């Protein structure tokens, strides 16, 4: 789903600096499609590991990516298909 990555990347830029994931560490655990994300706060609130923090627009930033256990909760509850995992 690289197209998605690109899309989300583009938007990230437009909406200001976010998702401070250090890509040199390898792929992030999750991708956030910021065009589709509507900042509903569900993923942020439901993640049992506090992986996300909201950015200025309320969209999720991978604040504690290393905490992620790939438990599926965030993407199963994202109403907008905006979260995908990078671990396949």
């Amino acid at each position, binding site marked *: 789903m690289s197209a998605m990555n690109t899309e989300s990347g583009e938007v990230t830029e437009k909406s200001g600096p976010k998702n401070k994931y250090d890509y040199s560490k390898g792929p992030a655990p999750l991708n956030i499609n910021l065009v*589709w994300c509507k900042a509903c706060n569900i993923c942020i609130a439901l993640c049992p590991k506090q992986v996300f923090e909201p950015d200025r627009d309320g969209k999720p930033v991978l604040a504690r990516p290393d905490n992620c256990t790939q438990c599926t909760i965030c993407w199963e509850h994202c109403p907008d*298909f905006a979260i995908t995992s990078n671990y396949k």
Partner: protein
Amino acid sequence: MATVADTKEGKRQQSSDVALGYLRPGKKFPNVWCPGCGIGIVMGAFIRAVDKLGWNKDEVVMVSGIGCSSRMPVYMDFNSLHTTHGRALPFATGVKFAQPHMKVVVITGDGDALAIGGNHFIHACRRNIDITTILINNNIYGMTGGQGSPTTPADSFSTTTPYGNTEKQFDPCNLAMAAGASWVGRGTVYHTTQLENLITKALQHKGFSLLETISNCHTYYGRLNRKGDAVAMLQSFKENAVLVSKAKTMTKEELKGKYAVGVLHEDNEITEFCDEYSKLLERMKAKK
């Protein structure tokens, strides 16, 4: 009070992006739904269920009426028939009866299925036609801006019950059972894993299956009744859902404000509508 907890283990990893392969290519995303609307969560669970079943997209027909929930089929890469308000089931009956080998799924709302569409609902149940109906119950008319529906609780507020609702409510599951549906279940958008499983079962069932799915319209129902935002409403589903097995052991009093989730009814004996007609056609052929 015991509530339902999702099982978090052993999930297929492809579930994170399997949905993307089922979305309609092109211009239809982002969708019309409000941020946080549970309808999108149902759609995700639905897609994962279909994917798990390995169904051929060409054989799936999604039929819906009018409402926020009824917009769902437009976004998915199946055959889709977005019909008039309340009428999804008779359109779907035409689709299914014409081509019984197709997998026909109806997506509908509490207003669409139970207010204007109530008659078609009970008749589809009666016929036990092999259609899976996912009724997204958000206790309100979302699309038109928050009017009361047949599932808006007593005393609740909506734009047409500004002094509190003086009407009583349907239990769609009870109604479906009394009308003849052979599979009835209930889930919520909080319990996504269970929801996916329930959808899978409903889809696999031969005969009419109704899955009531409790969902959040925080924009209207939530706001007018101080139920908080999407997250708060999802949390409340966690609080109020009780597994069917547990519910059976509870008193009416204890069950107040709660709802049983899981498979409420399953009858595999009762014959299916299209099958019965096919038998008739066979008899006619034999006669010739």
